[in-house]
């Protein structure tokens, strides 16, 4: 499925299977539920399959992805997170405008109506906060959506980008005072808008979208309404909310969330020594996670287990996901063939065989078409990372199975 073939996709309202997993309701009820399952779901459970809760994981609250009940490919709105660094701005969305400023031969301003009158495109995309997965307390800041809006590149072409331009800066309506060189004689405090940037080349070639809908509904304000930049394959921070200005420049933008925060500090081994580098948080890394584990009735003292999960990245094809129980062998999981989309997560499932009663650890790892393998926490690219952004390490899930 490509990103333009989305007209039949809609947020699923099916939920009965989720309830079945949660409560272990009768096989009859489950059978009825299965009849109503649409295609945008995990592989269907066997009758009698019941959720095995993860051990020591915090409860999932509102506006967070509920991994253990996840069964819809497009995430419902009540499981969508929002993070903002300058608060949610107060303004009248009906008068909102988008300005294109700076090194353009035809700088101009657009009303929402004008933007909605331009060509319209859907973009399927999984959006993850780059800090997601940094701890047990922050595991749910990821969701999959069908964004709808107008493509950015033709709009910028109409504005006429100066050939000398190097950088496109995207500003949101949210503002705050930032202090540089704090507690020094050269301290300076200024009020600035939230901003993120990328090269002109990236901005023109990555199929960026100026989105005003999510899953066929108007954006919610907390998620950036009335206008949000969508950058397929990039971490959430690049997807600027409450977008009101696009500035074309000939030099690097170094605002806080481009030049100082959302900077990964990581050690790399060179000639036997570790050299630390600071890099910008941009494209999403290859990642997978076990969403839930289910069990069936005990057979001969052993318990049959299944695991379900999701894997995502920057759009590079995900070819395999392997799952391991305790210290056992990695075993290949089945990747769902539908729905699939370049920038969206892929669901996987695996029959784990049987285990003995007690505590067990289950972990997944993804592989992409370039041979990249999702690292473990002990691997250098994670172990030598000193900042919490880009937390894409394998994530072992602990369960306790009763006889």
């Amino acid at each position, binding site marked *: 499925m490509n990103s333009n073939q989305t007209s039949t996709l809609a947020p699923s309202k099916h939920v009965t299977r989720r*309830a*079945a997993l949660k409560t272990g*309701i009768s096989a009859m009820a489950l059978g009825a539920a299965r009849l109503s399952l649409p295609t945008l779901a995990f592989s269907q459970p066997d009758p009698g399959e019941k959720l095995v809760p993860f051990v*020591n994981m915090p*409860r999932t609250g*509102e506006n967070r992805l509920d991994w253990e009940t996840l069964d819809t490919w497009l995430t419902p709105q009540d499981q969508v997170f929002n993070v903002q660094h300058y608060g949610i701005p107060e303004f009248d969305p009906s008068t909102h405008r988008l300005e294109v400023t700076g090194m353009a031969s035809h700088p101009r301003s657009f009303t929402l109506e004008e933007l909605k009158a331009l060509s319209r495109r859907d973009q399927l995309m999984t959006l993850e906060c780059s800090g997601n997965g940094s701890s047990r*307390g922050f595991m*749910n800041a990821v969701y999959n959506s069908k964004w709808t809006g107008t493509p950015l590149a033709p709009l910028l072409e109409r504005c006429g980008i100066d050939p000398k331009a190097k950088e496109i800066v995207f500003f949101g309506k949210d503002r705050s005072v930032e202090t540089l060189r704090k507690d020094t004689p050269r301290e300076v405090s200024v009020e600035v808008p939230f901003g993120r940037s990328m090269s002109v080349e990236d901005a023109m070639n990555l199929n960026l979208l100026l989105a005003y809908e999510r899953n066929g509904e108007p954006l919610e304000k907390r998620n950036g309404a009335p206008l949000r930049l969508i950058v397929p394959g990039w971490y959430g921070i690049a997807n600027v909310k409450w977008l009101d200005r696009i500035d074309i420049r000939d030099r690097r933008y170094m605002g806080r969330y481009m030049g100082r925060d959302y900077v990964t500090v990581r050690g790399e081994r060179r000639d036997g020594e570790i050299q630390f580098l600071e890099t910008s948080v941009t494209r999403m890394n290859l990642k997978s996670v076990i969403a839930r584990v289910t069990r069936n009735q005990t057979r001969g003292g052993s318990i049959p287990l299944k695991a379900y999960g999701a894997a995502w990245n920057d759009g590079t094809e995900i070819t395999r996901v392997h799952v391991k129980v305790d210290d056992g062998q990695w075993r290949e999981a089945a990747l769902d063939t539908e729905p699939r989309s370049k920038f969206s997560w892929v669901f996987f499932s695996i029959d784990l065989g049987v285990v003995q009663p007690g505590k067990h650890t289950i972990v997944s790892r993804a592989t992409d078409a370039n041979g990249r393998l999702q690292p473990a926490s002990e691997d250098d690219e994670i172990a030598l990372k000193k900042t919490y952004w880009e937390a894409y390490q394998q994530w072992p899930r602990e369960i306790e199975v009763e006889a």
Partner: protein
Amino acid sequence: MNNFISHGVSHIVLAKSIKMFLCRKRLLLSGLAASAFLAGFGPIPCARAAAEPESQNGRIEGAVRYVSDSERPWKFSRYYVKDSEKGFLAEAVVALENPGLRSEPPDQKHNATTIDQIDFQFVPETVAIQSGNSVRFTNSDESIHNVMTTDGERPFNVSMPKGGEYVHVFKDARGIAKPVRLGCVYHGGMRGWVFVFDHPWFRVTSRDGQFQWENIPPGTYRLEMIHPAGRLEWRSEIEIKANETIRLEIVVSPDNIRASKR
């Protein structure tokens, strides 16, 4: 429960309690068919005690029960409903309200509330206290936490390193409708609620969904239930008569889930 009267008298009260129970069906039929209510009657324990005859006050023994709907699942039920068949709802806040309650003296037994941070959760997640009482926050995790709120007239934002402790006095009674919402700036999924009342007639349901009050002054009250984590709400009028025990079961369903704000 420290004012039991003789066994013989309690039988009289038992009979009266059942009568009260039956005549208050309106309390129980929140959006449900009568048959559903009757089916749920079984688990309510029999009356064993009576109100205080000298004080002429009343008594409530209650339970909150969640009736699931497979077409409209409430994803939080796995945290708060221990037994999906019976549906008893834990960690719901119930409170009586009427203007006369504010003259009640402070309930000192609620002045030793602790909320710990364990496994990236506030534990307990929901507490109810009387205004002027304090909550002691602690951190038993290895990770650094924080406890903060922007609610009320005295917001706070306190770093909580491993082993940290912070005591906050909650002076503003915001009632059942406006709990103080707790969070941790480092871990956005952590959440908790402190309900602050200007009277002692509040309870948080037990793991089995139960609650009770003794010595309720006779009168007409608004009885409210809120489950903050799941946004469940319920309210009704209730009349307390002297020397009577009311047994009630608050039955909620997905119909009681408050819509989220866009």
